[in-house]
């Protein structure tokens, strides 16, 4: 039932820094009672150095919400406010050796509580841009609001588009029906991939041949454009070798060896095929040794 790491369990059973903090000078209350997760973060900040001398929390929420709150207080204690604000929700999840996809919102809540508490200390008004929908894609922890906004913002038409922009649907594919429902809700109908595929062969003969140099530049530019998406998940990609139609890349960080590595490579390949206008194969560096 619970796919929690040992670290999550440990922080849940023995939460650090729980309960009110008498001399707090910055407090952030965030969360949603409707969703059953809400958190009050209390900071004691040294006014001269802006170092967080103490941090406490009170949480109404599930096991991982309590563990994430506990982890957050441990991470930020001793940091300056500016350094603390650099803590991402992924950092909180990493500190706990990962959270199940259904529970990633707990770490998001931790980061937002921190922003709210810092704003409160600085006498600013914090407003959240928080909107979260039902979890649609469990493989990548992508919710309905994110999918819908991405479809609207980029005029996406097909299932494949959604996967390329959000990664949702790029794993086990069990969420495709739900994603197609969102596509229909936004576009009024479902477009299939076929028309595009038919056009492609007609276009390619007229495309001017790229020089080797131009081709590699193009590959690099395409990877560059993909980088922010990978970095959002603590991963990265570098180009290693181009051998004809075979493009070898190294995935690093969270992407490397993760169960989604092949899906990520698939996404990169798709972009490169589009950019180069020819069929290429994207392979992990590991595959080079075997050839």
């Amino acid at each position, binding site marked *: *039932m*619970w796919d929690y790491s040992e670290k999550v*369990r440990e922080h*849940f*059973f023995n*939460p650090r820094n*729980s*309960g*009110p903090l008498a001399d707090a000078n910055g407090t952030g*209350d*965030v*969360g*949603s*009672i*409707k*969703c*059953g*997760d*809400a*958190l*009050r973060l209390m900071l004691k900040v040294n006014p001269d150095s802006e170092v967080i001398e103490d941090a406490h*929390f*009170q*949480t*109404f*929420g*599930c*096991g991982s*919400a*309590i563990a994430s709150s506990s982890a957050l207080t441990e991470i930020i204690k001793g940091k300056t406010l500016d350094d603390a604000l650099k803590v991402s929700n992924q950092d909180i999840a990493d500190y706990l050796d990962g959270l199940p*996809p*259904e529970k990633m*919102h707990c770490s998001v809540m931790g980061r*937002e509580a921190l922003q*709210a508490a810092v704003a409160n200390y600085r006498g600013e008004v*914090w*407003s*959240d841009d*928080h909107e*979260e929908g*039902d*979890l649609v894609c*469990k493989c990548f922890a992508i919710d309905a609001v994110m999918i819908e906004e991405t479809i609207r913002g980029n005029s996406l038409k097909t299932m494949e588009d959604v996967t390329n922009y959000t990664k949702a649907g790029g794993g086990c594919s069990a969420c495709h029906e739900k994603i197609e429902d969102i596509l229909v809700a936004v576009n009024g109908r479902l477009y299939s991939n076929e028309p595009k595929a038919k056009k492609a062969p007609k276009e390619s003969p007229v495309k001017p041949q790229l020089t080797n140099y131009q081709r590699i530049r193009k590959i690099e530019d395409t990877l560059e454009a993909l980088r922010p998406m990978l970095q959002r998940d603590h991963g990265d990609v570098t180009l290693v070798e181009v051998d004809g139609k075979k493009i070898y890349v190294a995935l690093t960080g969270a992407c490397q060896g993760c169960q989604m590595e092949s899906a990520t490579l698939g996404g990169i390949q798709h972009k490169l095929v589009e950019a180069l206008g020819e069929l290429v194969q994207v392979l992990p560096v590991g595959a080079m040794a075997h050839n």
Partner: protein
Amino acid sequence: MKPIYMDNNATTACDPAVVEAMLPFFTEQFGNASSIHSFGAQVGKALKTARGQVQSVLGAAHDSEVVFTSCGTESDSTAILSALKAYPERRTIITTVVEHPAILTLCEHLEKDGYVVQRLRVDKKGRIDLDEYKSLLDDRVAIVSAMWANNETGTLFPVEDMAELAHAKGILFHTDAVQAVGKLPIDLKSTKIDMLSLSGHKLHAPKGIGVLYVRRNTRFRPLLRGGHQERGRRAGTENSASIVGLGVACDLAQQHMEAENTTVKRLRDKLERGILAKVKNAFVNGDRLLRLPNTASIAFEYVEGEGILLLLNKLGIAASSGSACTSGSLEPSHVMRAMGIPYTAAHGTIRFSLSRYNTEEEVDRVIAAVPPIIAQLRKLSPYWEGDGPVTNPEQAFAPAYA
């Protein structure tokens, strides 16, 4: 210490007698009931016995009214889709807001295909309004589907009365009795219920076996077409081992029916009273006067259910929560919402569901375990201060994006 299992509405342990009866059907009794030779004939006989045992626990008039399926969910889908096929000019389904997802998700899906779904609302004790129900019965309705007993609170619907009313208007009536069969005496032949779903794993039979009762002369359209099994109403080679196990489980349920409604009920009542006496800001959900004898749904205010379950689990106690965060959706259960239970209590709802295997000693252990767990979590809660809720909890803690 021996673990305590109080999550019998989720699933039950197979009774050892059930397992024993099933074993030969994995080995020497492997035949296909449809075969002419003796391998098949013996299995055929065993299926007939089991059909009779199910007939008996349901009080059905004929054993041919029993259709074996693969689970409660399949039975529910078969019943509703059959009615829509059999009465194509009728496009409305009446159901309730508190049904199991086996009904609700199907109905939502059917709405996309243009069917009209009327969902009866419930009051804060989980009861429907029969007048509202009556006002919806007309000749556009293909089927009414209402659960006999609610899986989260145990609250019973007056399905026999509802079936009479539907029958008087010529409308089919189906009940999801997955939680009721084996816990309540049932006599279908004296009712107007046309179809009923049951699921083996809720009454100490294995998972993956169910039954759809279909009253003789009910217009029926199969979900699975193929061979002639189940008289053509559910094609597919019979799951003989599980069917035999279900038969034995139905026999045992009848033998223990009395104990279920006396001994088990007394233990459930003791558990509720024991916990409520020691934990304040807690209350029982559902209709206390009209509910299953085994189910206790208790709301603990200002704490969240998953934390309670994790701490109980650490002490070897298995229960379940009324908040659905554990299943990945963030809203509290649709049943709690439908009853208007405030979020701060709905999220802290725990369901203890007992069976004939639970003992007095186990109940005492749970009564002792719960209060310190609630106290421990309330210490972490922004709504709690010292030994009571903060004054004006809703104002004192009003998080952004609440």
